[in-house]
């Protein structure tokens, strides 16, 4: 490679390395603030008090949804497999709100309860027709029965 071209190649490599390093450092420094939401663990174990309007995310715990009999008040728990967090919400659940699936709640954290004003449903990366889902469920139940025996 002739010297001029080599110089240009080196310039490009220097730019690429410099920009990558800068971005890497910035990303490490901003790790918490780039994340869209806290997990129950990061919220509970936070050293500094977390106040104001924030987001938490996690998986809805099975059989944890409690509905008030005559209004839209609801309470449920989300988990990140280590800690669970109780969420208080008044309103209608989003369409894709299911037990064992991910949600993100907007609101504030006070006295170990998260008061949500808005819920977003996170959807998984799995796509399948209903028939396939039922077949998997059937197989899963069968295995449970076998293991129960």
């Amino acid at each position, binding site marked *: 490679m002739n010297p001029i*071209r080599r110089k*240009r*190649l080196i310039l*490009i490599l220097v*730019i*690429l390395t410099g*920009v*990558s390093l800068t*971005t890497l450092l910035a*990303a490490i420094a901003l*790790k918490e603030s*780039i*994340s*869209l*939401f*806290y*997990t129950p663990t990061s919220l509970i174990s936070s050293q500094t008090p977390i106040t104001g309007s924030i987001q938490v*995310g996690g998986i809805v715990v099975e059989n944890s949804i409690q509905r008030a009999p005559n209004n839209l008040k609801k309470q449920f728990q989300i988990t990140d497999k280590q800690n669970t967090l109780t969420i208080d919400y008044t309103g209608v659940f*989003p*369409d*894709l709100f*299911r037990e064992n*699936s991910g949600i*993100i709640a907007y609101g504030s954290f006070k006295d170990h309860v998260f008061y949500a004003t808005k*819920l*977003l*449903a*996170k*959807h*998984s*990366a*799995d*796509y*399948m*027709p*209903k*028939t*396939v*889902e039922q077949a998997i469920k059937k197989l899963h139940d069968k295995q449970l029965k076998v293991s129960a025996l």
Partner: protein
Amino acid sequence: MNFSFLHKLSSPRYFYYFSITYNPWIFYISLLGISISLTWGLAFTAPDYLQGNSYRIIFMHVPVASLALSTYMAMAIAGTMGYIWRIKLAFLASKSLAIIGFSWCTLALISGAIWGKPTWGTWWVWDARLTSMFILAFLYLGQIILRYTIQNTETAHRACALLGIVGLVNLPIIKYSVEWWNTLHQGASITLTSTSIAPEMLHPLLCAIASFYLITVSLFFYYMQCEILKTEYQTTWAYKVLASKNTMTPISH
């Protein structure tokens, strides 16, 4: 290995005639591919167990989003080749790819927002994936605008090549944003080794991805034809081509 084919292809005249000969084939095959895969995906595939019919936007969203990233990569590589070896055709390739990539990126953002409303419950959130994709659109826009701002063509090409390399750092951020940070956007459904999409949905999706890639190649060739004629109009062969098209009268010298 014999590189004479590549050397020939780097001549604007040879590239132009190569493109004129083969591009119509590429274009019609990709158009056929898109019609088949979209009909297959939209009309002959079962609805999703959870999302119902709204998941079908995947057949367009995934190909265009994937292309927005690949086109940027190709654009940056072309720009770098132009910068190091001062190949005119590489700069033109970089210029063409910026416009194509910007279109794909915009379509990915729009289709993603349309998908987000029924599934997540919102058009937009500032999570890492959506924000980094938004930045990609502006990196493309920067390329396009920078070329128009700098009067001297050669300087403009070089400046865009360097800008393209700076923006390259955004590509891994987009790809891994869903793993590095907590995001609303779900993780990847297709990786090199595995997939979480049922086969009957995966096959039309893969066909759609292949067809969209092919039409990108074709659009690239069409853009290149225009760019080559625009820069080479003073040469005898390009003058003849333009005169025979009778679409404009080149200035005689």
